[in-house]
C-alpha cells in the first residue's frame, strides 16, 4: 500500500516492521515524530525518557536482553548520549540496536548546527543516511540487519528536510525477532581488562564494514547521460537537490552509508567521471575522506559549510540562471516566532524584566522570552545549563549578583538535566534562585509528556515526580509555588526569595494554554475611554494586543482571557466581557 509519510513516520514504520520491541527517547525537533508515531503501534513498547543518555541506555538494556530496540534524539541530544555511545561501540549488541539522530542544518529549531557524522567516526559506529521517506523506512530495517551482522549499534541519521518532508512509501509487515540472552562478561563488562580486548574487535569490525560499504546496494552509482564532464558524490537530502538541478545528466555516487565510507568505490567512480564534486550539507566529512584516500575533489570551496542547501544553492554554484521573476520594493517586516497569547511564561518574564533581573535561560518555549519587547534573557546554552550556570555566576559574583539574578527552566528541561545542577547548588550552597517554569508539558517540541506530568507517551496514567518534594529532598529549604497569571504574587515572592541568604526554588505553575484541557476564558476588550495610549501593554509582547487608531485593541480570536494585561494597565482599560 502506498502512503504519503514524513521521513520520521517512515523511520518509525521501518523500526516497527523490523520487529523493534522498545523505543526510549527524549523529544527534540526534528526527531520527535519518530517516537510519537511508533507509540501508536500497540504491539511494541515506547516511552519518553528523562534525557537521551537514559534513553540510549534503556534501549541498550532491551538489546542486551535480546529484543530489537531503538532510541531517538536530535543532534544535540547525541551529545548527552555520547557517554554510552562510545562504549556501546565496544560491547556491541545482542539483538539489534538503532540510534536515530536528527540534525538541523539551518537551525530551524536548534542552538547549533553540529554535524552528527563526526560522532559516527569518533565512536566507530556505522551510520546510515536516508534521502527520502522510502529510504528512511528501508534503512531503518537495514540498520537492524547491519547491527546484528556486525555486532554494533547503528546510527540512523536524519536531517530536518528528510525528517519533515512527506514522500510516498510502500509499507510492509512486521517480523518478530528475539535473541537468547547469555551472560558474557568479557563482552558486556567494560572494565579495562575486557575493554582492552574489545578494542581490536572494533577496529576489525570497521575494516569489515568498509568491505560491506564497497559492495552494498546502500551506496549506488547512477550513470549520467554523458553530457557532463564531471560527477557528484553526495548523500541525504543533497542528493535530491543534485537530481533536481541536473536531472539524470550527471553521474552520481549516492552514499546511503556515511560511516565507514568506501575506498575502492570512490576511487573507481572518480577514475570514471574525471572531475568530482562532493555536495554535502554542513561539514566536509565525505570530502575529507576522499582527499585522505588520494581522490582529488571539490567540496567546501564551492558549496557552503553553513545552513541548508537547495537546488538553488547548487544551481548558483554552477552559474546556472537565477529563475526569480518578481521582486518587491517594500520591505516586509519579519515575523519571528513568539510566545502564544495567554502563555503563562509571559507573566513571569514581565516581572523579571520590570525588576531588571539577570536571567540565565534554558531550552524551551521560554527561550522566546529573549525576544523583543521583553528582552528578558541573558544567556541560553544547552539543556540544564541555566541552573548549573547560575551557580557559577553567583559563586563568581557573590553579593553583587546573588540578589539580582535567577535562572528559568521548564519542567521537562529540569527533569532532563536541571536537577543535577540544582543538586550542585544545594550541595555547594550558592545563594541562587532557580525558577522552574512548570507548564505541565514539554511545550516547544509539540506537547510531550514528561516525568512531572503523570502521564505516559500513550496518555496512560504513569509515575509522577513531585517537584516540591524533589527540591526539598535534595536540600533546598525554600520552595515556593506561584501562579504566573498573578503578577503581584510573582513580584512579591521573587523579591522575598532573592533577599534570602540561601538557595531557593520558585515554581511558576500554570499549564500551557495550548493543552486541550485548558479552557480559555472570554476575551478581554479595551475600553477606549479609559485607554490613555501609554503603550505600557505593548511592552508585554502579547500577540493578541495591537495598537490601532491611537489605542490598544485586543484580537478576540487570539485572546484567551488570562487577564495579565489588565493587571499591567494603570488605567483599568482592559475589561472583561459582561457575562
Amino acid at each position, binding site marked *: 500500500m*502506498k*502512503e*504519503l509519510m514524513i521521513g520520521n513516520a517512515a523511520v518509525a514504520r521501518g523500526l516497527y516492521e523490523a520487529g523493534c520491541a522498545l523505543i526510549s527517547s527524549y523529544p527534540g*525537533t*526534528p526527531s*520527535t*515524530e519518530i517516537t510519537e508515531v511508533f507509540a501508536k503501534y500497540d504491539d511494541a513498547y515506547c516511552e519518553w525518557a528523562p534525557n537521551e543518555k537514559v534513553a540510549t541506555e534503556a534501549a541498550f538494556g532491551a538489546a542486551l536482553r535480546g529484543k530489537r530496540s531503538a532510541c531517538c534524539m536530535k543532534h544535540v541530544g547525541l551529545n548527552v548520549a555520547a557517554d554510552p555511545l562510545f562504549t556501546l561501540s565496544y560491547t556491541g549488541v545482542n539483538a539489534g540496536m538503532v540510534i536515530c539522530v536528527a540534525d538541523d542544518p539551518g537551525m*530551524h*529549531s536548534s542552538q547549533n548546527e553540529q554535524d552528527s557524522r563526526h560522532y559516527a567516526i569518533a565512536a566507530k559506529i556505522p551510520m546510515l543516511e536516508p534521502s*527520502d521517506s522510502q529510504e528512511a523506512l528501508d534503512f531503518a530495517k537495514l540498520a537492524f540487519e547491519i547491527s546484528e551482522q556486525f555486532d554494533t549499534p547503528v546510527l540512523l541519521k536524519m536531517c*530536518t*528536510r528528510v525528517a*519533515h*518532508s*512527506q*514522500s*510516498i512509501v510502500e509499507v510492509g509487515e512486521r517480523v518478530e525477532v528475539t535473541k537468547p540472552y547469555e551472560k558474557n562478561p568479557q563482552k558486556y563488562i567494560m572494565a579495562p581488562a575486557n575493554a582492552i580486548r574489545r578494542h581490536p574487535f572494533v577496529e576489525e569490525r570497521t575494516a569489515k564494514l568498509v568491505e560491506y560499504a564497497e559492495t552494498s546496494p546502500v551506496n549506488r552509482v547512477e550513470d549520467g547521460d554523458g553530457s557532463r564532464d564531471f560527477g557528484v558524490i553526495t548523500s541525504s*537530502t543533497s542528493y*535530491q*537537490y543534485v*537530481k*533536481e538541478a541536473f536531472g539524470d545528466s550527471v553521474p552520481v555516487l549516492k552514499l546511503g552509508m556515511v560511516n565507514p565510507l568506501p575506498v575502492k568505490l570512490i576511487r573507481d567512480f572518480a577514475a570514471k567521471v574525471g572531475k568530482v564534486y562532493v555536495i554535502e550539507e554542513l561539514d566536509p566529512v565525505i570530502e575529507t575522506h576522499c582527499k585522505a584516500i588520494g581522490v582529488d575533489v571539490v567540496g567546501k570551496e564551492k558549496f557552503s559549510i553553513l545552513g541548508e542547501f*537547495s*537546488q*538553488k544553492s547548487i544551481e548558483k554554484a554552477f552559474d546556472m540562471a*537565477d*529563475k*526569480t*521573476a*518578481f*521582486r*518587491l*520594493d*517594500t*520591505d*516586509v*517586516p*519579519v*515575523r*519571528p*516566532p*513568539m*510566545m*502564544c497569547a495567554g502563555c503563562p511564561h509571559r507573566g513571569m518574564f514581565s516581572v523579571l524584566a520590570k525588576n531588571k533581573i539577570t536571567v540565565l535561560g534554558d531550552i524551551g*518555549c521560554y527561550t*522566546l522570552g529573549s*525576544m*523583543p*519587547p521583553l528582552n528578558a534573557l541573558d544567556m541560553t546554552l544547552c539543556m540544564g545549563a541555566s541552573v548549573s550556570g547560575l551557580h557559577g555566576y553567583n559563586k563568581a559574583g557573590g553579593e553583587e549578583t546573588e540578589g539580582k539574578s535567577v535562572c528559568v527552566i521548564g519542567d521537562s528541561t529540569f527533569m532532563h538535566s536541571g536537577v543535577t545542577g540544582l543538586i550542585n547548588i544545594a550541595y555547594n550552597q550558592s545563594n541562587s534562585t532557580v525558577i522552574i517554569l512548570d507548564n505541565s508539558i514539554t511545550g*516547544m517540541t*509539540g506537547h510531550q509528556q514528561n516525568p512531572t506530568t503523570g502521564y505516559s507517551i500513550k496518555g496512560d496514567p504513569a509515575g509522577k515526580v513531585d517537584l516540591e518534594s524533589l527540591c526539598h529532598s535534595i536540600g533546598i529549604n525554600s520552595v515556593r509555588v506561584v501562579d504566573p497569571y498573578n503578577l503581584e504574587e510573582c513580584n512579591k515572592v521573587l523579591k522575598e526569595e532573592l533577599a534570602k541568604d540561601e538557595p531557593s526554588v520558585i515554581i511558576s505553575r500554570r499549564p500551557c494554554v495550548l493543552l486541550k484541557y485548558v479552557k480559555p476564558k472570554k476575551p478581554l476588550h479595551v475600553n477606549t475611554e479609559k485607554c490613555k495610549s501609554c*503603550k505600557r501593554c*505593548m*511592552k508585554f*509582547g502579547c*500577540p493578541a*494586543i*495591537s*495598537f490601532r487608531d491611537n489605542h490598544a485593541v485586543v484580537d478576540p*480570536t487570539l485572546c484567551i482571557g488570562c487577564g495579565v494585561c489588565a493587571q499591567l494597565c494603570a488605567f483599568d482599560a482592559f475589561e472583561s466581557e459582561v457575562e
Partner: protein
Amino acid sequence: MTKNVMIVGVGGQGSLLASKLLGRLLVDEGYDVKVSEVHGMSQRGGSVVTYVRFGDRVYSPVIEAGEADFIVSFEKIEAARYVENLKKDGTVIVNTQQIDPMPVIIGAAEYPSGILEEMKAKGVHVDAIDALDLARQAGSAKACNIVLMGRLAKYFDIPKEKWIAAIENSVKPQFVEMNKKAFELGYSC
C-alpha cells in the same frame, strides 16, 4: 512536468490540514508527491511555509525562487514575503486578513499597506479573497484553510468531487458538512 504549490501563513492558522488534504488528493491522482514543512519553533506564531510538489518524478522537497506555480497565502504580507518564489506566469491566492507580526505590534515596524497593489503593479496575478469572512459564513473561522483550498481547486483540472472526497477523508465526521460548505464558498466566490 513538476507542479509546485506553496502554502504560507502564520503558525497556528491551519496550513497543516490544507497540505494534508492536497497531498492525499495528489497521491490518489497517481502523482509522485513531496510535501515539506518545518515543525518546531517557527510554529509559535512565526511565518510558516509548506511546499507541495507533484509530477511524474519529484526530487527536491523544497520550492525555490521563481519555481512556484501557486502561492496560497493565509495572510497578506506572508504572500509578499514569498512572492520571489513565484513563477512568471504563477498565481498568488491570498486571504486578505491582516495579522500584525511582533515588530509591528511593538511599533518597531509598520504593516505595509497596499502590498497587494504593489504585487499587481509588478505583474503578479493576484487572486485576493476574504477567506476569513467566507469561513465564518460556512460556520467557523477555522475553515479558512478549506476556503483557500476551494479557491485553489478552481485552477486545477482535478474534478471537484475528488476534492470533496479528500475533505471527507481528512476531517473529523462532525466537521465534514461545514468544510464542504467552506470549500464551495472558496470555489465559487
